[in-house]
């Protein structure tokens, strides 16, 4: 591509990146105050601390400073990549916990996303080709069910059937990290997304198949699979691609539930336990990390969208 054509893309990218900074700052400040507003604190436990010891603990974690000062110090620290020590898991820093939890969540999430796309697009395309015929009704019926069953219902059911009754797969944990431990969590995480993507693909595929350029292709005698794969799929995927951002957010929030149910040691589980334990630094760390991740990935999706739809490039 020639240089002049690249400039709008570059300007667009820089604008988006600069726009992300205030978003992130607002997110950090909100999370910072919300977790501190929640009643109960990190040092409340069944065995009450003697007041002298609680005073020392609060001082050690700088909890007695004015809140704006605490927030300022926190921002300075994360600017240097330091998320602080975990309140709850005292042998680890938050950065260490994110470093161990994120690869697990990433694996879980990318597998779920890959399966959601693969199955969702295939099923949606098939349904579109058999529009208003039994195959279509079956696929869309299944998709409707998939969307309606929340994963906190689906997950324990999967465990009961495949782990307890049939004994094919582990009931929880990550074990040695092999794939068989991920099968059930990935299914629980992917199914609602499969359903959603299938519906999106079907709708837009039906529309594309009716458009003049496809009729032209048919008239030229091209084989159906060539028409679908080479000509129809790319434009039909536009709504799916724009759904990738929300899908990613859904998979991240879904993993909070699924990791907790399956006892998978990912970031989602850290987040839930961190919130319950009022582990201020851990909750903040996960929020900042995921916040930045979602902003970054939405940015990438915008760029991919431009690649898929030439009309957008000319703006």
């Amino acid at each position, binding site marked *: 591509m020639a240089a002049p054509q690249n400039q709008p893309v570059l300007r667009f990218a820089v604008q988006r990146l600069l726009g992300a900074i205030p978003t992130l700052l607002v997110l950090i400040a909100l999370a910072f105050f919300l977790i501190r507003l*929640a*009643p*109960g*604190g990190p*040092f*409340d*436990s069944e*065995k*009450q*601390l*003697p007041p*002298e*010891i609680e005073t*020392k*603990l609060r001082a050690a974690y700088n909890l007695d400073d004015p809140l704006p000062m605490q927030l300022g110090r926190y921002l300075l620290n994360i600017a240097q990549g330091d998320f602080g020590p975990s309140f709850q*898991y*005292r*042998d*680890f820093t938050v950065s260490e*916990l994110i470093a*161990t*939890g994120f*690869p*697990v969540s990433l*694996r879980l999430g*990318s*597998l779920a*996303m*890959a*399966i959601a*796309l*693969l199955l969702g697009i295939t099923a949606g395309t098939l349904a579109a080709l058999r529009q208003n015929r039994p195959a279509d009704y079956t696929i869309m019926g299944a998709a409707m069910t998939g969307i309606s069953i929340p994963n906190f219902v689906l997950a*324990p059911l999967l*465990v009961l059937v495949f*782990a*307890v009754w049939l*004994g094919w797969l*582990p*009931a*929880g*944990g*990550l074990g*040695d*990290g*092999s794939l068989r431990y991920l099968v059930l969590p990935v299914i629980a995480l992917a199914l609602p997304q499969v359903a959603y993507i299938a519906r999106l693909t079907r709708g837009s595929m039906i529309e594309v198949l009716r458009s003049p350029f496809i009729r032209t292709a048919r008239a030229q005698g091209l084989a159906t699979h060539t028409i679908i*794969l*080479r000509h129809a*799929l*790319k434009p039909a*995927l536009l709504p799916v691609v724009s759904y990738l951002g929300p899908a990613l957010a859904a998979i991240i929030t879904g993993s909070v539930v699924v990791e907790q*149910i*399956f*006892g998978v*040691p990912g970031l989602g*589980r*850290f987040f839930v*336990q961190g919130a*319950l*334990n*009022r582990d201020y630094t851990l909750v903040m760390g996960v929020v900042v990390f995921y916040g930045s991740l979602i902003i970054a990935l939405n940015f990438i999706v915008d760029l991919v969208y431009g690649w898929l739809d030439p009309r957008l490039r000319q703006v």
Partner: protein
Amino acid sequence: MRLFWVWALILALAACGPADQSATSPAPGADNILRIGNGAEPQTLDPHRAEGVPESNILRDLFEGLVGEAPDGSLVPGAAQSWTVSDDGLIYTFILRPDARWSNGEAVTAGDFEFGLRRSVDPATLSRYSSILFPILNAEAVINGELPTTELGVRALDDNTLRIELNSPTAYLPGLLTHSTTYPVHRASVAAAGERFARPGSLVGNGAYQLSEWTVQSHVRLDRNPYYRDAANTQIDTVYYYAIENPDAELKRYRADELDITGALPYQQLDWVRENLGEELVISPYLGSYYFGFNLTRPPFKDARALRTALAMAIDREILTQRVAGAGEIAAYGWVPPVAGYTGQQPEWANWTQAERNARAQALYAEAGYSATNPLRVEVLYNTNENHKRMSVAIASMWKQVLGVETSLLNQEWKVFLETRNQKSDTQVFRAGWIADYNDAYSFAQLMHSKNEQNDSGYVSAEYDALLDKAAVEQDPTVRAGYLEAAERELLADLPIMPVYFYVSKHLVKPRVQGFVPNIMDHHATRHLSLNGD
């Protein structure tokens, strides 16, 4: 087609992602690997900063205190082979085992214990449990930063002899010395790794096992310590402690043969478990007391002993334990659970029939000024949990039926609940439970002392405090028990709390696990267990 290859690539990348954890894998039912469900994720494996049950279970395998526990929970020599007590009961002298070794092969010395105890009370350690060591001379002043740690009443006289001086004779000291705050730590590794020494690679212990792997929110893996003094009699090679908070999930993993011992049981499935896994169900008395407290600092329970007594009498504990709790819990009319060397106290009405209690409760309720037209309106606070909810609902309906009390129920999430309960400004009736830190009635009695942080009722009784203070300095076990029993009688006459039941411990244990002896502390060190080849 291009998109297809993109997906294929994503899938392949995800599939062969970080699989480096695969170094170790507990195959289901593999020989000589024990897999334990251990409740919440341990907060720390630093023995001096640990406070919860999950971490103390693991620490019991990693370290050995001066005093140890036999499989049945009774006290036996641990790292110390013997000890003597001075005539005034103030000085304990411990002789260490000459063959005691750290997991790196170095000898365990009295100096290590001295270092450990000093570190435990050092304000810089930020221990949340060190106040348990107050009986040791100067411990309180050191914890409060008023004296240096060298002033703590603990001295290594030579490599094998440790002397502990006390403020006053403390009969439960040997029991206290099984607690993790008294464990020794390896000086060189603490110096090298700093406050985060308690991790694989840097944690050096003197227990039967050593720390080999720790994946937060998943598991802790321990392997046998070849240098342990009794390694020859240690049967199990490897033990996994899994972090599983949810008893339903834990039961599923047990049924899928991924666990050998569960840490808890879901109440809702107790009947199913009894029917289907009855042989593997181990239920036994546990040193804990479940009760509801009255807030004595504000109406309606301030200066209202008759009312408190009426409410305490009007609940049918047989129904509450059998139908609501349901695991074999013991109906409690007193505060201290059955514990050796102590006679549990009960109010006189414990031996009445429930009908007699109800009649008396109605009379007391009227005496307190309440009636059908002017009923007591009260709020019961509990932490969000299905079992506590059922218990609170049952109690409220008994109060309603017998006395006509109008109860409203309020539940709060755990941390919120703890704060509300401790502030004493909003509560009227609140749920509570207490598990002993050491096997002695004093572990319960001290909770109701007017100065105790745990005294959420705000109970202040000069008589009660005086009896406890006497017991604290009494050396003769019988006389001491007498003081504590008198204190409990005092407590049960005042009823700042309403006892409901004494806990039981509940585990599922696979038949292949041998040597699992139920005991009142619910302590089960791995070195006492073995596995049957199946």
